[in-house]
Structures are given as C-alpha cells and as structure tokens.
C-alpha cells in the first residue's frame, strides 16, 4: 500500500514536471508568433509600452524663464548653443506604467525653427537641451550638469515625491542602477541613461545606443 502510494506520488511529480517543461517550451516558442518575416525566431522580445494620453502626459517644452531666455540659476541661454558639438545622454519617464513623452525644444528659447517633430534651432540654447522628442539630451561639452538642471530649464518640478504633475514617490535609475539620493543631484554626463518612474514599476533599461553626436 505504502509502496503503491510512493510510486503514485513519483509518477505524479514526473507528469507535473514534464507538463511544466512543455508549457515553458511552448511559451518561449510563442514569443515569435505573429512574425512572418524570414528572420522569425523564438526570441523573447521586450514588451512595448504606449505613451500616456491626456494633459498630465503632455508636458510643455519650457517654463516662463526659458521662454524669455532668462538665466536659470547658473544656466544661461547662449546664442548658437554655446559652440562646439554636444555630448548625449538619455532620459525616460514613466507614470502609472505609461510613457511620459519628453518634448523637443527643452532648453531652446523661442522663436523656434521646427521641422516636423524636431526643433532645428531657436533664439538661444541652455547647456542642456532637446531637439527631438525621444528623450535624447544634448549637453554642452564641459558643463557640470545634474538632472535638476534639466527640470529647471524644462520648468517642471522634480523631487522625491513629484515628477511633473504626478505626485507620488519617484524612483530614479542611472544606468540601470537605483539612485536613492535626491533625483535632482543625479549627474548628467556623456552617455548617462536615466529612468524616472512614478507609480507602477517598469524595469529600467541600463543601456542606450546613441546616435552620432551633434
């Protein structure tokens, strides 16, 4: 009797493990389902996140100070962008598990020269600016900048409990690692990959393939 029960338990366990392995294999293979191209292969692609809709997710590119090209703390708006090529960093914002788009034209005083989604120039530029709506930050070479400078130029609040119009604990990541200090003190340097989140956790990316410097 005892032996029969032992056998039954072992058989049950084997069946369960086999079913689990089959399910895992099917799940992995299903990741490529729907792909019809010749290069289709069972790879676990990242899951897309859409941008949030509504005014809270549509932040204007500048506050009053930048709109009038006024100095913001030690940051001055310089015609011609201050000269020289800029180095690049990237910032990504999430709220409630949705993307908060970073607009083009942060740190560029009007009148702007626009081309579609891009800003090609303006009256003057601050040491940190965006010319495209992709989160790509253009930093004046040699400037000592922090994340707080970006938000100051942008005219949006940033604190432990505030990100733009969202009031909730802010989780900050630099190159995929949690930044526990004041997010405004996070250094903005060449190649920095910054992720800020409020609400639902989104696994932060640690790397970003940058385009050629501009």
């Amino acid at each position, binding site marked *: 009797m005892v032996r029969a*029960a032992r056998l039954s338990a072992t058989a049950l366990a084997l069946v369960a493990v086999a079913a*689990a392995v089959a399910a895992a294999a099917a799940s992995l293979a299903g990741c490529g389902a729907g792909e019809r191209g010749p290069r289709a292969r069972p790879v676990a*692609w990242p899951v897309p996140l*859409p941008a949030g809709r509504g005014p809270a997710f549509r932040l204007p590119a500048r506050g009053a100070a930048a709109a009038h090209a006024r100095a913001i703390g030690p940051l001055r708006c310089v015609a011609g962008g201050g000269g020289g090529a800029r180095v690049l960093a990237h910032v990504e914002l999430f709220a409630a598990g949705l993307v908060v788009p970073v607009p083009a034209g942060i740190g560029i005083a009007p009148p702007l020269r626009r081309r579609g989604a891009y800003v090609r120039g303006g009256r003057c530029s601050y040491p940190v600016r965006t010319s495209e709506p992709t989160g790509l930050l253009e930093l004046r070479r040699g400037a000592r900048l922090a994340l707080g400078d970006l938000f100051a130029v942008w005219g949006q609040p940033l604190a432990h409990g505030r990100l733009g119009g969202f009031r909730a604990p802010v989780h900050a990541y630099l190159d995929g690692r949690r930044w526990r200090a004041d997010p405004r003190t996070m250094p903005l340097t060449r190649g920095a990959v910054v992720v800020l989140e409020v609400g639902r956790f989104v696994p932060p990316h640690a790397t970003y*393939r940058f385009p050629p410097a501009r």
Partner: protein
Amino acid sequence: MSLRFRPTALALCLLLAGLLALPAPRALADADPPSDVLLIQNVYYPYAPKVPPSLQAQLDDAAARARKAGFPIKVALVASPADLGAIPQMFGHVAAYANFLQREIAYLRPQPTLVAMPGGFGTSATGPRGPAIVRRLGAPRTVDGMARGAIAAVEQLAAANGRPISTAGLGGGKRGHHRTGTPAIVLFAPVLLLALAFGGRTLLTRRRRSPGEDRRDPQTNDSST
C-alpha cells in the same frame, strides 16, 4: 518515504512546475526613437545615413495622401541599431519590430505600420495582404532603396486596403518602385504643338507680306543696304 510526506512532495512538485511554466521575464520598453517621433509625424527617418530631401518629400507626400484617403499609415526607416535606442537587439528583425512599434503607437484602434530595414520590410495592422506586398519589394541595401520601397509600399498597401491614393505627386524610382510621374513628353506636347502652330503662322504671314524676300540670296541683301 511514507504516506504523510505525500502532500509536501506534491506541493513542491507543483511549485516547481509553476516556476517552470512561467514565461521568462520580458523587459518593458519604450525608448526607441521611432515610437516617439511617430506620435507627431507620419514618417521616421534614420539618424545616418541621411535620406535625400527629395525622397523625404515624396515619402512624406505618399503618407499624407494615404492618411487623407483614410489609410493613416506610419512609416519608420531604420538604418542602424542607433535608430532603436534602448532595443538595438531588434535591428534586423523587421517583422517583429513592426509589431512592437505598432503596439507602442496604436491608440484605441490598430495603427497601420510599415518598417523598412536594410534586410527588408515589415508590416503590422496593414491587412491580410500586407506581408505579401512588402515581401515582393525585396531587400533594400541603401536608405534610398528603403525610402523608394516605402513609397511603393504605402501606395500598394493603401490600394490593397481599398483606399487607393493619387500618385500624381510621386516621383519615379529605381528598384522596387514603378514610375508614377507623368512622362515629360505628355506635359510638353501641348506647348510644342502651340509653338509649331505659332511658328508656322508667322512664316506664312511673312511670306504673304514679301513674297520674293526669302528668295533673295544674302549677298544681294547685303549689297542693297
């Protein structure tokens, strides 16, 4: 082992089975430039190499015409991993990226999406004939080829979805793109005919006014002055 361990063993097995059955954790991603740019405009162009402005104008025009005709397609030309930002691993997987991008930018309803990469074209939400249409375009090797193929694809996808677009403004292409512009001879034929008619009439008028003038040789003419 005895009977009293059976429930524990079963629980452990089920736990193990559950863990194995869980799909591998997949990263959530957004930081690919096309998804941000396409929220604002119809076509994403790569960082480098640059697409010639004339081709950009033609592709913008094709996408705008498709939108006007009721087929609001978004197009991304992806020339290098740098165009994919935080997900460079999707470079070369054009069909998978087309599906990914479509899900990022769709709002309330599926968003027809076309992606071009150096290895080929991919579509999402473009109807049942979409994949076959872009497969026929082949694999572009240059950004010019990607742009020309995308122009042809937009035209054909719109037509396949019952929203044919006017092709009057589109220029001709090389590989994978049929000529859509009006031939120059057709445009200039009326002007040429008018010029010939005007020239003929002038000639006749001159002959009527001085019938012998044309017969005089240049020497005579010169000597008379």
